[in-house]
């Protein structure tokens, strides 16, 4: 498949407005403004574009459910907070070409009749954020933003908001609080942000990669988009592959491409003499999959059926020289550190899990610790306030199942076999 979303991206010298327009950029505005907003939503729905931010919620359905009669002002938030470990696709979109993002937001905001849009940029992407601001200015000067854009009667203002820098700021409602200048704790989702979001007004949040697809769908049609995918998947997808592979990187491939192709063809496979132990298919907050899952299409439903989540489509690979307990502990440290501190199970439960894992990993775990981990994870996953905690315990719960023998070994022998192996090797 030819690159679609990344075709004109160049992180070293991103296209300016004129150059971007020369590649056909901003053409989708004409298509969009010729259509009724509801019609655009219908097309996006027909294209079966599913959210790329992690949950895979159908984008068109989300837009339609917000309702055409939502009271003004209406807001669109483009989520570019990308803090999921192993995920670096949004970053590429940002650094590679900010005008593509702006174009996507204009047509999406038009579909939603939103008069103000925010791009929430991860704090560490400050340079990209600055370039984005310049691009927004360019677009404003060219009359692509502001009032009555290209005589359409549609008004739009875009603001880039640079995050203070916390994983939780990627969560939709925490992000709304952050933009409002409040503590980024998630909000209770009743009433929904689609009706009571930013400053109590109707607000739609989409991942930047989700939005990037919209201009292409408008220009080429829903059927064309669906057919871009393989194995039942729809559209083009940005996949990240990292961990114990030869060439970690970002690959734009048809949605539904199996992990085997991603890992062994595009990422160059594992080091010589190493075998695959398992992999995370969708970023740190997804469940481990095993070599037997290599041929499952990397698409939302098949991966869910295999017991994990497509998440952000970011594969992290473990080889057989990597201690899965250590890897899991590393992830849990991350999540315990990133908990927003709002609800008890997550705030105090994750450090508890981390503490138990630390003892196991260092060889002082107890036989009943594994059952304790399972018991605590069940409550943390089901009784926390937002989706952070269920995601956070997912790799642990699955790792306890997938790599049970490794845990048993740590507990019964009182040491980490991989440490020994490394020491012997050295």
């Amino acid at each position, binding site marked *: 498949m030819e690159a679609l979303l990344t075709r004109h991206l160049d992180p070293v010298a991103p296209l300016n407005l004129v150059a971007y327009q020369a590649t056909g950029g901003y053409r989708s505005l004409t298509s969009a403004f010729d259509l009724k907003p509801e019609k655009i939503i219908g097309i996006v729905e027909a294209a079966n574009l599913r959210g790329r931010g992690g949950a895979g919620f159908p984008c068109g359905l989300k837009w339609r459910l917000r309702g055409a009669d939502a009271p003004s002002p209406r807001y669109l938030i483009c989520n570019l907070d990308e803090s999921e470990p192993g995920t670096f696709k949004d970053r590429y979109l940002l650094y590679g070409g900010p005008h593509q993002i702006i174009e996507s937001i204009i047509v999406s905001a038009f579909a939603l009749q939103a008069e103000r849009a925010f791009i929430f940029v991860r704090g560490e992407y400050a340079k990209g954020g600055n370039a984005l601001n310049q691009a927004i200015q360019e677009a404003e000067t060219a009359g692509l933003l502001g009032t009555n854009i290209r005589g359409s009667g549609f008004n739009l203002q875009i603001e880039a908001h640079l995050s203070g820098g*916390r994983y*939780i700021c990627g969560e939709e409602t925490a992000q709304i609080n952050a933009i409002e200048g409040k*503590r980024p704790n998630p909000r*209770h989702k*009743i009433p929904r942000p689609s009706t009571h979001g930013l400053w109590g007004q109707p607000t739609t949040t989409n991942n930047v990669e989700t939005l990037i697809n919209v201009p292409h769908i408008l220009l080429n049609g829903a059927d064309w988009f669906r057919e871009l995918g393989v194995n039942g998947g729809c559209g083009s997808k940005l996949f990240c592959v990292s961990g114990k592979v030869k060439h970690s990187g970002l690959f734009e491939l048809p949605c539904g491409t199996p992990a085997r192709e991603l890992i062994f063809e595009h990422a160059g496979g594992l080091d010589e003499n190493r075998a695959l132990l398992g992999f995370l298919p969708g970023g740190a907050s997804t469940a481990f999959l095993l070599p037997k899952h290599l041929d499952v299409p990397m698409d939302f439903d098949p991966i869910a059926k295999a017991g994990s989540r497509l998440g952000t489509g970011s594969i992290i690979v473990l080889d057989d020289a990597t201690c899965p307990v250590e890897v899991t502990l590393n992830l849990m440290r991350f999540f*315990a*550190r*990133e*908990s*927003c*501190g*709002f*609800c*008890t*199970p997550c*705030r*105090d*439960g994750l*450090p*508890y899990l981390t*503490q138990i894992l*630390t*003892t196991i990993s260092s060889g002082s775990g107890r036989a009943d610790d594994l059952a*304790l981990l399972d018991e*605590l994870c069940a*409550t943390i996953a*089901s*009784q*926390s*306030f937002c989706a952070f905690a269920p995601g956070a315990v997912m790799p642990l719960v699955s790792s306890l199942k997938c790599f049970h023998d490794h845990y048993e070994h740590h507990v019964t022998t009182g040491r980490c076999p991989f440490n020994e192996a490394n020491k012997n090797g050295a």
Partner: protein
Amino acid sequence: MGKIMLDGHAIPFKLGDNILQTALEANLEIPHFCYHAALGSLGACRLCAVEITPKDSGKAPRVAMACLEPSEDGLKVSVSAIAAQQVRQHVIEFLMINHPHDCPICDEGGECHLQDMTVVCGPPYRRYRGRKRTFPNQDLGPLIHHEMNRCITCYRCTRFYQDYALGNDLGAMRLRNEVYFGRFQDGPLENPFAGNLVEVCPTGVFTDAIFRQHFARVWDLKTAPSICPHCSVGCNTLPGARDGTLRRVRNRAHPELNRWFICDRGRYGHQYSEHSARPLAPRVSGTDTSYHDALNAAASQIKSTQDCIGGLGSTREDLEGNAMLQALLNNLGGIFTAFSDPKLETATIAAVSSLQNIGNAPSLAEIEQIDAALIIGDLTAHAPMIDLALRQAYRKGAKLAFLYSSPTPLAQFATTAITVSPQEMCTELSRLYQLINAQSAAEDITDTPMTDIAASLMGARKSLLIGAIETMTSQEVSTLSKLATALGSDTKLAYAFSGANAYGAALLSPTGSAVAMLEAVEAGQIRILIVAGNDPLGDSRFGTRWRAACRNLSALIVLDCILTATAKAADILFPVAAWTERGGTFINYEGRAQGFATVFHRPEYLPNVARVITDLAQYLGHSLQAAPSVLGDIFSDFQIPKPGTTGSLITAPSLPMPATASAHSIQESCNSTWQAALASWYGDEALASFAPGLMALTPKTVAMIEPTSAIDAGIKNGSKIKLRGSSGSMVLSVRFNQDVATGTIAIARNVLVQLGVGHGDSLELEQVL
């Protein structure tokens, strides 16, 4: 009305309530931490887990948070379900991971919500084997002690402090299991309602620092329902005493007044009764003596006099004390008033009279519902909890308008705020009255702040006009009440009186009796004065005259529980019981009579005022009826309200509106260009000024002047000026302040007293180079 099935019992619910509210309303406990009736649901602690099965949904039961799930008809809720119990156990286990387990030395012990919930929910043993996270504590000032390690991160403190009380110097900081509740830097909490953190916090993070100085276990405290004596709101309180000393005061919920909170003056002002200078033994001519000897001395003075006798009650003295003093004076043929300041007397009587005519003042719960208010003067110091009620109205979108002469904290929430010098206040109020009477305020008059106020009051669904009596004249009071009449029945009128029983005192004091009494003492017609709970010699406006006049007396007989200037000057001093040491009745700003009970007795014999007066009458050969029947004679069918009940409005004969010509103070003839205004703060009140904890927070004594008028007069910010009044002068440094009216100097009460000027009196200013 629908019903939920709570563990098999049908419980009716109010539409819009959640499961937890429904249960609590029915007096059924579902464990919870972060939910608070005043602060609402948050969903953070996750302790209120219950198992729910929606009616006819065919869905499997699931565990949900009771504080977030709306009650629905037929919803099955189980608190006892094993799945819910297990979640609650885990939540407690998580919260206990870092808890210091220092119950034996924790002040919260015995009334700790965390302790209770841990016992109720379990688990009994800890499994966590790691290190505990620890926090440093902060110095939050003299009133509140901070122990962050005990925190369970329920966010109640910030929700109270920032969202409810609209304070901004305490909040949640950091994240993960390091969320910290405190200030950016150490320092006293600035909000006048900060003390409520002690009760809002379900653990021992925020505890009462004053209680801590002389600590007792709460189960050892003697308590009884009391009424706060520190202002006319009449908040219900629950003082606690041990071993003959008062240790602390807590909120006691009244459904229409203070429901969950009290102000810091009410919580910490009680230290007056433990003050080291408190008079505890009767004194005759400066020598301690027995109660019997003091009564004998007073009786013989009274018997031997040919002249008239004066009885000066007080706005902070209870109804019984005032009425008995009045009864004695009636028997002796003397005169009685409860006011030492004739201006305050006419203003208070005018206010009570207008409330009687227009209808009663709204309760705090009603004030929270108004959508527009006009506020004259400062409420934060004169009726703190009315300020808090108005903050709630503001949160719901009410428009607050202010006319004020000196800074008032509430004005930070103003839609329209106009500074007006005390002497112009009446004119400005009349102008507003004319605007409103013209009916067309919004249209044909230019858009001035005053027309905004008129429009907002006229457009309101429910509005409130309220003024602080101490800084108002009777003309202003009557103009405000005319304004209320003009606005119609959707407008409520209220006054923040000066003194917990000012309303009751006004009912007992004939108009003009204060000036009559003062003049009689000055003329030597009254040679014996009995003062109960009043401080004429310490008065700001009339203190100079009283001090001179009192030299004519042959005997100054004082009954009080604090060492005022008047008590110090007494020839015969009867120390009396403080408010927690006796029962009685106060009539609050609404006209609500509320009873309070004796909480404890000190080892010394400290009778209440009514007792002393009854005994004195007996020594004089008179026999007075008991207070209840004396009061029954004055207010037909009056029943002493029982302590612990909600009280009831007093029915009293209508007071005549006093003639508007006010009593003259000697100051008004002075032709200086500067006027004095009272710069009040919430700790400033007769009793509370003997509370060291609160007094440690007294603002710096400065002269606050509005910048433009100061610059016009060549006065620089920070420079020194000398102020002169009838009884003295004082050098102060100047502080520019936009919230002071033009031509006005705002100064603290103690400065006014020292200078001998009242609010609105002229003042001489001289620059000190």
